């Protein structure tokens, strides 16, 4: 009798674990840990109005990472420009394709390079802000 109870208990335990495990998988989205607000420094290079020299300076800018409606795609939102990306081993790949930008995104920071036009570029580096709402 004791043996039957033990077997039944183990069986119920296994079923419970399987149910819990499946539920966890279904609710996990790899993107969740990246979604948020990143306070960044932009190391900027551009051409001056007289087109006779390059100018350099630093700016502080907020980048927002949000989830795209498409499965597994993230959006990097910088000012009025947005970039669809897919992460592989924390490396940013343009989705479905893109030019003139790239970088890395980890759970605690972003390093993102972008040629904003043919004469300007910015390297964004920043950390994710904790305990902030992700909405703009």
């Amino acid at each position, binding site marked *: 009798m004791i043996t039957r109870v033990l077997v039944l208990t183990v069986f119920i335990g296994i079923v419970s674990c399987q149910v819990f495990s499946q539920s966890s998988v279904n609710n996990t989205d790899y993107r969740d840990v990246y979604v948020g607000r990143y306070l960044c420094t*932009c*190391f*900027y*290079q*551009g*051409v*001056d*109005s007289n*087109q*006779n*020299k*390059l*100018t*350099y*300076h*630093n*700016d502080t*800018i907020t980048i927002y990472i949000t989830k795209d409606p498409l499965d597994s795609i993230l959006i990097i939102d*910088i*000012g*009025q*420009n947005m970039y669809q990306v897919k992460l592989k081993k924390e*490396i*940013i*790949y*343009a989705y479905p*394709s*893109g*030019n*003139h*930008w*790239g*970088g*890395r995104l980890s759970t605690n920071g972003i*390093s*993102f*390079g*972008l*040629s*904003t*036009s*043919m*004469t*300007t*570029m*910015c*390297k*964004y*580096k920043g950390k994710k802000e904790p305990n902030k709402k992700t909405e703009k």
Partner: protein
Amino acid sequence: MAKSQIPANDPAWHLQTGSSEEFNSSLDFTNKWYNQYPFGPLNNGAEYNYPANLIQTGTTLKIKVDTLVPSVHHSPSVYADPDYLGVTYVYQGGAIWSRSKDYHFGYLEISARFPTSYYPYWPAFWLWSKDCSAQPPYTDEIDIAENGAYNSENGYMVGTNYHLHIPGTDCYGPDHSTSDEETKDVPFLLSSGFHKYAIGWWPDRLIWYIDDSPVRTIYDPTGASIPQHAMAAILNFAIDPWYAYLPSDWNDESITPHGNRSPTFFPQYFEIDYLRYYKLDTDCNNDITICTPSSDYSSRAVERSISTGGGCSTTFNTSDSYVLRATDYVLLDVGTTINANGSGYFAIEVAACPE
């Protein structure tokens, strides 16, 4: 057969010879072109630019990119990043940049062979102008054919883009400029031969053309989202820094690696057969009535309004190629006849005055 109202099909366009280039003779680097960027050998690519990479064959201009041996160290940092002590350039490229901002509306076209099959190739044909002291400040750019990274590797795609200043932002700030890139598929390998890449630019619209066919249109009757200022023309061949293999001092987590792509794809060339700039005559304050269409193309201009028929019997024959262009309206009144009796065409175009 549909035909675009472009210079290839419409002699009313006038070639601006002073702002065009056939590349049949030595380029005028004293008065017409800079032989590199006017601000020096560096721009936002991963290449160091040299005039020696502008190769004039007698019929074409070939802009070369290559590895750079020995490399060139540039300091202070190109990124204004205090953690950097400068970077080492291991690639070289080239650019020509018009000394005058001669390009202001009209039709601008190159015939060119673009390089393909390698991610970091970044050749481009573009227009640019910026004035941060103007009120309001502006940064205008039209990228007529800009192929970086994915486009260059793929070989069957052409990048189009344009940029405008975002009102209220710092003219030199990181987010001062809009960007609206679209990639267009083409049915040929870009490096397989010469093809035409062009922009039709009006105050209220931009139309990109590839081999005489429109591939993208931006229309804004207010003109607010269309570049409005005269610009310089640029042809260059760069290395896309976000995809290239670079020395360790670029330190770069901002770069997306794309497989094991050793620099065995050099030298490479962006070859241009010609650059041609066309404009239409304008007469935008006049209203005209056409009774007897003239076959004299030189008399055709953009008018405020054009009326036909009415008290006249006006006949257009498609043995001619006739475009009625007006800023406000074109009225085909009773008495107007269009005879489909030739291989030409008849068209109406109502657009803002391109002057």
